[in-house]
């Protein structure tokens, strides 16, 4: 059984614990073992990253070093975290001087990063470790007649040279899993565009317009729901639909990929945290 250490990031445990719970439930059922990372820190994405590149290397570098001490590859479930950890790994693996600077800072804790471990985003675990055949055979309660729009998350799939998850222009992993679970994956305008989440700190109004642009495109494709693979995207695409411009009856449920798949492989809704979803996905789940 392949084992990973889960790096939850800051946001999932507080803002979307159902994502954490459903990741664990689904991966366990599909034969992947997960252990938690103790004494972690923020990966430094966006804020530290923008103000001191070396501090950013040290923050993500420490997470890589903890995993290396545990002897386990990292599973990241947030787009920002997986992007940061992979970017920093790439840089430290290719620059001895920077690696030495980070390791000097880590020395007093008995940590060292030498490049031994890998970082994978959740989508890679499904595609590379579990595989579509195993997912297909695990589906015991397929969906019927539901149309789902996949949203991948910019930092999950770009830049491809570093993250190596899926085709950045035409990603297919979520769509494939939607189909394996019995749903219909729908294409829509601007599928690989951003959810607007990274704009929240600087301009919430613009962030909301960008998010609603995507919601409009998903609605035009007549999707019953949106399936995500990043905590920020999930929260952003949900919360923009509580803008006063959106009628409550028009809201489109947003599900994380493990919530959506979990139901089809026979995991109960409580374990997937469905009741915590702010837009009820019952219309999808009960089909």
């Amino acid at each position, binding site marked *: 059984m392949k084992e990973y250490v889960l790096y939850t990031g800051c946001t999932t445990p*507080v803002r979307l*614990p159902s994502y*954490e719970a459903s990741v664990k439930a689904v991966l366990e059922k599909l034969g992947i073992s997960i252990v938690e990372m103790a004494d972690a820190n923020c990966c430094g994405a966006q804020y530290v990253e*923008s103000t001191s590149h070396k*501090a950013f290397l040290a923050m993500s570098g*420490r997470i890589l070093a903890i995993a290396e001490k545990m002897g386990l590859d990292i599973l990241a479930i947030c787009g920002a975290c997986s992007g940061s950890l992979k970017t920093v790994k790439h840089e430290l693996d290719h620059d001895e001087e920077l690696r030495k600077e980070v390791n000097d800072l880590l020395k007093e804790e008995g940590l060292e990063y030498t490049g031994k471990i890998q970082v994978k985003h959740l989508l890679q675990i499904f595609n590379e470790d579990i595989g579509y055949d195993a997912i297909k055979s695990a589906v015991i309660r397929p969906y019927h007649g539901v149309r789902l729009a996949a949203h991948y998350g910019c930092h999950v799939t770009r830049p491809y040279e570093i993250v190596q998850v899926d085709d950045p222009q035409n990603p297919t992993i979520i769509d494939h899993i939607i189909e394996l679970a019995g749903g219909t994956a729908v294409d829509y305008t601007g599928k*690989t565009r951003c959810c607007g989440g990274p704009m929240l700190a600087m301009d919430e109004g*613009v962030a909301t317009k*960008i998010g609603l*642009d995507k919601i409009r495109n998903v609605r035009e494709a007549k999707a019953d729901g949106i399936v995500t693979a990043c905590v920020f995207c999930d929260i952003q695409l949900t919360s923009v639909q509580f803008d006063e411009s959106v009628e409550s009856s028009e809201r489109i449920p947003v599900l994380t990929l493990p919530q959506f798949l979990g139901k089809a492989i026979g995991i109960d809704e409580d374990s997937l945290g469905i009741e915590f979803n702010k837009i009820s996905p019952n219309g999808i789940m009960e089909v």
Partner: protein
Amino acid sequence: MKEAYTPTSDFAEEISRHPSGEGINKCVQCGICTASCMVATYENKYRPRKLIQKILLGAREEVLKSELPWLCMTCRMCEERCQEDVSIAEIFHAVREIAAKEGHIPNAFKKTVETVLKDGWLLKDSYSDMTMDDREELGLNPELDWNNAFPKKLKEVYYQEGTK
């Protein structure tokens, strides 16, 4: 001969020497970045092509004091489409880091950096009893275990006198 047609400036050279900014002189100002940008779609004052042009023309103070380079979401849609292999996200990271060293950090970024370096993570103040209950109900550990000693040390090392 090619060099004769490449606009450049001291500021563009400064950016190109930064590890994140080396691609700047490859920009041919075609504008596919602005055309691809969701921020530009909804914020008229934000035009990535124009910002790159200002760097190429050497408008150092104007660019470093502006909030515009901080509006890039780093979604990298433009970079996916750029035919010259220019990464706007990386160039603006270089601009931000130089601006930060000179004391120009937008408040939203400044506050969040302070929080992360103090608490070790982003959401300590948002972690309520209610969320704890939710976690317990989901069978998750309610005790979140974050390290703040290391980020505090990084503040000493990398963020003294503004930032280093």
